[in-house]
C-alpha cells in the first residue's frame, strides 16, 4: 500500500520515540556499568561515561556471584530438561489418546497456568520443610517444573496438533512399537516446538524470584535474582557494580533468546492467537 510522505515521516518519528522509550533504561544500565566508581554520583545524572572502564565487571564477578550463577544454571537447565520431557509425553497423550476424560484433564492444565503462586506458597513451603528439601536444588527444581509444566504442555500440544497423525499410523502399521514411533517420528518432528518451549522455560526459571527467595536461606544456595536483590542492601551505593551484575545476569538469556527468537515467538503467539 502506498503511503503519503507526511504519513511516513510521522510513523518514522513514532518509531524513533518507541525505540528511545525502550532503549533509554538499557543504555543507562550499560553506561553506569562502565563508569568508574565516583561518576554515578554526578548530579545531574550523565548519560555517557566520561572515563569508561570494565573495572565494575571485574569486581562484580566476585565469588558469590559465581556461586549464584552456577546455582541458577543448574536449576534452570534441570528444569528445562525435566519440564520439556514430561511436557512432551503429556502433550502427546493429550493429542493422541482416546481417553474419555481428556478434555477435563486439558482444562486442569489450562487452569494450572493461572495459579497465584504467592497464594499457595505457604503449604508448598511446609511440604518442602517436612520433606527436608528446603535450601536444596530440589526444592527449586520441583517448584519450577510444576509452574512451567502447564504452559509447556499447552505450547507443545499446539505444535503436536499440527503434525499429521498419518505418519505415525503408517509406521505403526509397518510394525513399529509405540515407543519407536514416539522416538523416531514424534520427537524429531516436534523439534521447533521443543526449542520454543525450552526457551520459554529458560526465561521463566532464570528470573524466578518468589520461590527462590522463600526456599533458599544461605548464600551458597541463592540464585542470581535473589543474589542481585541482596546486593541492593549491601552494595546499595556501588551502582556501577550493581549495574554490571545486572548486565551479566541478563546476557545469557538474551543471547539464547536472540538466537532462537523465531521459534519462541511462533510458540507463544500460536497458543494465544489461535486458542
Amino acid at each position: 500500500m502506498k503511503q503519503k510522505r507526511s504519513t511516513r515521516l510521522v510513523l518514522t518519528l513514532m518509531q524513533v520515540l518507541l525505540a528511545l522509550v525502550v532503549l533509554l533504561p538499557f543504555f543507562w544500565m550499560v553506561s553506569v556499568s562502565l563508569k568508574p566508581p565516583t561518576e554515578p554520583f554526578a548530579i545531574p545524572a550523565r548519560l555517557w561515561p566520561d572515563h569508561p572502564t570494565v573495572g565494575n565487571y571485574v569486581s562484580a564477578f566476585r565469588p558469590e556471584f559465581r556461586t549464584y550463577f552456577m546455582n541458577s544454571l543448574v536449576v534452570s537447565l534441570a528444569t528445562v530438561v525435566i519440564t520439556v520431557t514430561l511436557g512432551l509425553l503429556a502433550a502427546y497423550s493429550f493429542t493422541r489418546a482416546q481417553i474419555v476424560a481428556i478434555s477435563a484433564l486439558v482444562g486442569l492444565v489450562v487452569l494450572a497456568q493461572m495459579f497465584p503462586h504467592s497464594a499457595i506458597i505457604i503449604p508448598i513451603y511446609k511440604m518442602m520443610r517436612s520433606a527436608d528439601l528446603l535450601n536444596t536444588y530440589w526444592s527449586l527444581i520441583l517448584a519450577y517444573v510444576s509452574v512451567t509444566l502447564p504452559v509447556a504442555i499447552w505450547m507443545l500440544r499446539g505444535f503436536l496438533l499440527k503434525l499429521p497423525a498419518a505418519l505415525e499410523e503408517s509406521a505403526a502399521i509397518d510394525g513399529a512399537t509405540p515407543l519407536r514411533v514416539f522416538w523416531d517420528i514424534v520427537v524429531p518432528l516436534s523439534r521447533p516446538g521443543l526449542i520454543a518451549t525450552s526457551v520459554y522455560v529458560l526465561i521463566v526459571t532464570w528470573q524466578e524470584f518468589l520461590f527462590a527467595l522463600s526456599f533458599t536461606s544461605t548464600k551458597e544456595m541463592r540464585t542470581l535474582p535473589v543474589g542481585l536483590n541482596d546486593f541492593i542492601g549491601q552494595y546499595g551505593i556501588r551502582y556501577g557494580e550493581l549495574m554490571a551484575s545486572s548486565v551479566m545476569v541478563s546476557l545469557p538469556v538474551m543471547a539464547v533468546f536472540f538466537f532462537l527468537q523465531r521459534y519462541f515467538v511462533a510458540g507463544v503467539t500460536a497458543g494465544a492467537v489461535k486458542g
Partner: protein
Amino acid sequence: MRKDRRLHWLLLAPALILMAVMLYYPMFGTVYESFHETSFLSPDPKFAGLALYRRILADRTFAEVVVNSIVWTFGVVLLQNILGFLTALLLNQNLPMQGVLRAIVLLPFILPGVVAAILWRFMYDPQLGLVNSLLLQMGLIENSVAWLADSRMAMASVIVAAVWKGFPFSMLIYLAALQNVDQSQIEAATLDGAGPTRRLLDVTLPAIRDVIVVNVVLTLILTFNYFDIIWVLTRGGPQSATHIFPTKIYETGFGQFRFGEAATYGVFSILVLAVLVALYAIVQGRANRRRVVA
C-alpha cells in the same frame, strides 16, 4: 486399543501427579492454614476457626491491599494493552527498520524481572536517577521528586515500570493477530473510500476482537499475581501504599512468620483469581464457539 490407553495414561501420569501435588493440593492447604494460627513465638499451628478472617477484615491494611490491587491491576492492564496495541499497529506498517525495531521492543520482556526492577529503582533515585535528571533538564519539574518514597507517587511509579516491562508481551500477541487479519477485506474497505481510522474501527478491530478480550483477561490474571517488580522497588511501601496481595502474603508469611494470616490473604486472592479465571473461561469459550460457527 486397551494397551494403547494404558500407555497414554502412563505418559500422562508424571505431569498429572506433579501438578496435583504441587499446585492443586496446596490450594486446599492454603484454606487449611487460614484456619490455623502460627507466629514466630508459637510456630505450632493452633486451630483458630474464623479468627484470622475476622482479624484481617477488621485490619485497615486489608482494605488498602484490596484498593491497591485494583489500582495496580487495572492501571497496568489498561496501559500495557493500549501501548502494546499501538506498538503492534506501528510495527505492522511497511516501514524500513521494522525487523530491528521488533527485536528492540522485545528487550524489556526478556530482561529478568528483578533486573528490570533494580534498574527502575535506580532510574527513580531522587538524586542520582535518570528520571529526575531528564525531567529537570527539560523543565517539566522544578524539584527532584522522590518517586518511590512519596506515597502519592509510589503506585504510579511502579505501574510505569511494570508497563515498560510488560507491554512487549501484549505487543507480540497483537502483532500476530494483526498479521492474521484478512488483507483483502482491508483492500476492499480502502476501495470503498475508508480512511485509516475507519479501516481500523470497521475492519481490523472486529477481526481481532477475540484476541483483544483474551489478551486483556490474561494480563489481568498475570498482573494480579505479579510479585517481583513491587517487591524489589518498594517492598509494598511507603507504609502500605503499594502493597498488593502477593507482596502482603510474602511479607506476612516469610517476614513475620504469620503463616495463618498469610494463607488467609492467599484465600482472598484465590477467590479474586477464581472470578478472573471464570471470566477467562467464558470469553475463551465464546471465542471458540464463534470460530467453529465461522
